[in-house]
């Protein structure tokens, strides 16, 4: 299982771009990189997933360098409502893969007015 390391917490002002980096040095060939967001008193919610290079959706972008040993979640122009915990997961999440994927410590993002 690929172990992930991400900052415990980050602060950002409203309107700024936030980049959260996750290290996963022992990522395997079949592993995907998946990010989840969790608000207080709610279950995690899928944000974005990638395998290599760059992935962008309406919420975020995910940058993955060629060696795939790290990844960066980019949140453009954050607002107060983006205050949450962000989890980086690495593993082969296809077909029951969540049985083998571990949630790391997560990064608690605090957006400041």
């Amino acid at each position, binding site marked *: 299982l690929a172990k992930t390391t991400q900052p415990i917490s980050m602060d950002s002002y409203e309107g700024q771009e936030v980049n959260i980096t996750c290290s996963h040095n022992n990522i395997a060939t079949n592993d*995907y990189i*998946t990010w989840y967001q969790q608000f207080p*008193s*709610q*279950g*995690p*919610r*899928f944000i974005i*997933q990638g395998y290599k290079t760059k992935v962008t959706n309406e919420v975020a972008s995910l940058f993955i360098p060629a060696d795939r040993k790290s990844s960066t979640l980019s949140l453009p122009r954050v607002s107060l409502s983006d205050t949450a915990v962000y*989890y980086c997961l690495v593993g082969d*999440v*296809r*077909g*029951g*893969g*969540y*049985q083998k994927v*571990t*949630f*790391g*410590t*997560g990064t608690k993002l605090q957006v400041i007015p």
Partner: protein
Amino acid sequence: SAVISQKPSRDICQRGTSLTIQCQVDSQVTMMFWYRQQPGQSLTLIATANQGSEATYESGFVIDKFPISRPNLTFSTLTVSNMSPEDSSIYLCSVEVDREATEAFFGQGTRLTVV
């Protein structure tokens, strides 16, 4: 996608008693998972529940303490048995919609306090 309803949303229970948490999904799903999240901590997988087979428990979790039922493709229950204050936590149900899915959906969680 999948919409998951967990009941109860929260409960306060006496030590030594048991609580059964229900997880209802709005569509048929293949894999269902139960997680525990202690206050301020990350999620820990308790077990994987497939319809028609025994649940698979992770290290540190046993069937006698956390019996699970999966009677059909839309429903599962987790029972926390013989509770102690150390069982106070949030319990979350999660699903994968099909074998090709790479995204998991989570319920709102059940906040359990044991006194």
